[in-house]
């Protein structure tokens, strides 16, 4: 019988670094087969969440599971089914690209030659180059191959496209969609909002270690937030407004409104709005 447990389930996860917060009481769920975007600025807690899931750092409050397996007790089983790509693709500098890819497959105890060769061909990986001769973009390509060659059930990507040229970014997402069609789920941490809007079905926004909201990307863009563009008292104003429009209009009393346009905001505007709201 097929396991229907969520791809990722986090309940009340709290991780602190001494007195500094990492993430606080974070809960979210990623269903199997989903492509889930995890949005937040630098230092918001995205990487802390991911590292907690992968067992790189320990957390003492809350619990988390991947593919129905507890992240604390079944770390090795989880990592067999996960393809992870860190934001900084760092490898052993004296090794060649091909050796790194083979090393990752050998540790898994799998023969991934066929899949690795297909991935290397599509991404244009030069297997004979030493790691210390490669740019960040080329190291990222090796990281993609290492994350995908064993056809995992869940991908976890932390800022995957930084350093990749636009063509490679397109190829990368093409690959994700192909694996996703075969049933793999994808958890994508990013602050590139267009990527989330284009490729993700669900998304969560994290700020200062706390989850602000999680919903479908469609619903997130259909909030009552509006982009207001107007000329008031001869001055042009452009802002995102979230709330009761009657109150907004009541505030215009006594002002001269020459022109006003109200439209649906873009995802990045909603994202920024959440942040501005949180900072007030």
């Amino acid at each position: 019988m097929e396991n229907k447990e969520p791809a990722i389930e986090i309940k009340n996860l709290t991780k602190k670094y001494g007195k500094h917060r990492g993430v606080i009481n974070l809960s979210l769920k990623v269903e199997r087969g989903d492509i889930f975007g995890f949005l937040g600025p630098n230092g918001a807690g995205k990487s802390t969440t991911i590292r907690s899931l992968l067992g790189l750092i320990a957390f003492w409050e809350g619990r988390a599971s991947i593919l129905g397996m507890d992240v604390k007790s079944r770390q090795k089983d989880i990592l067999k089914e996960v393809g992870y790509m860190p934001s900084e693709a760092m490898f052993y500098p004296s090794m060649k690209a091909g050796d790194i890819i083979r090393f990752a497959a050998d540790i898994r105890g799998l023969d991934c030659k066929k899949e690795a060769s297909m991935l290397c061909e599509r991404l244009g990986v030069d297997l004979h180059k030493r790691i210390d001769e490669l740019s960040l973009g080329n190291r990222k390509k090796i990281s993609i191959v290492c994350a995908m060659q064993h056809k995992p059930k869940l991908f976890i990507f932390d800022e995957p496209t930084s350093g990749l040229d636009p063509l490679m970014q397109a190829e990368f997402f093409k690959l994700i969609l192909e694996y996703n069609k075969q049933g793999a789920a994808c958890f994508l941490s990013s602050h590139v909002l267009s990527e989330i809007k284009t490729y993700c079905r669900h998304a969560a926004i994290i700020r200062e270690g706390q989850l602000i909201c999680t919903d479908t990307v469609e619903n997130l863009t259909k909030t009552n937030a509006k982009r207001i563009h107007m000329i008031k008292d001869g001055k042009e104003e452009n802002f995102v407004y979230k709330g009761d429009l009657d109150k907004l209009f009541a505030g215009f009393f006594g002002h001269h409104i020459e022109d006003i346009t109200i439209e649906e905001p873009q995802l990045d505007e909603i994202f920024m709005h959440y942040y501005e709201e949180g900072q007030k």
Partner: protein
Amino acid sequence: MTLYKHEMKQNSKGFLIWTLCVGLTCLGCILLYSSLENSVKDMADSFSNMGSVSTALGMDKMSLATLRGYYATEIAMMHNLLGAMFAAILGTGLLSKEEAGHTSEFLYTLPIRREWVVFQKYLAFLSNILLFNLICAGMYLLGFLYMGEEINGKEMALFHFATSLMQIEIGTVCFLVSAFVKRNLTGAGLGISIMLFAADMMCRILPAIENLKYVTPFYYSNAADIFTEGRLNGAMLAIGAGITIVSFLIALFRYRSKDLTP
């Protein structure tokens, strides 16, 4: 054992450099003995009567007038110190190099238990130390053969067994340090080995700090003691083995729950 092979390969360059440098330097000193022989024989008596210096270097027990004595007091001391430095360099980098080189996110997100990582890395360290000592001992034996000197196999075996344990002990203490830090502390490792070497010299001279002999593993790997007594100091070896095992277990326990940074 993929990680074991990987570690051995990663360390191969350093291993070759250290083994050849130490082995060839000591072999060169053995071969030089024939040209020094006459002058050393003349000075042997004065060397053995230099009071505390003679005691520290073991020249009160062994005479420089023979190649055997020259080996026990000079060559073995050089091998001990350089071997300990090599072990310290290996030990300090063993675990911390993943975080220092930013490869921890790659290695520890592969399906391998941390305990197994620690075990395979430590096994690679042990292999390096044992191979280092085997190759060096082989070179020294060739030197003895070339010089036409009779070899006491038991003495040589006991000394190289003791010096291997001493290097393993120092390397394991550095391995323990490595489990707590995020960067390579090679300097600290070298400092530990030199301090322990100095502690051995001093505790032989000053009765007030004689108890340092229980702390420094150079004490039980002193070739002059081993060659004159024809046996190893079991109690000291047991203390050394205890320190090694406890250091390894603490390192393992600490590393299991350590937060790894990219």
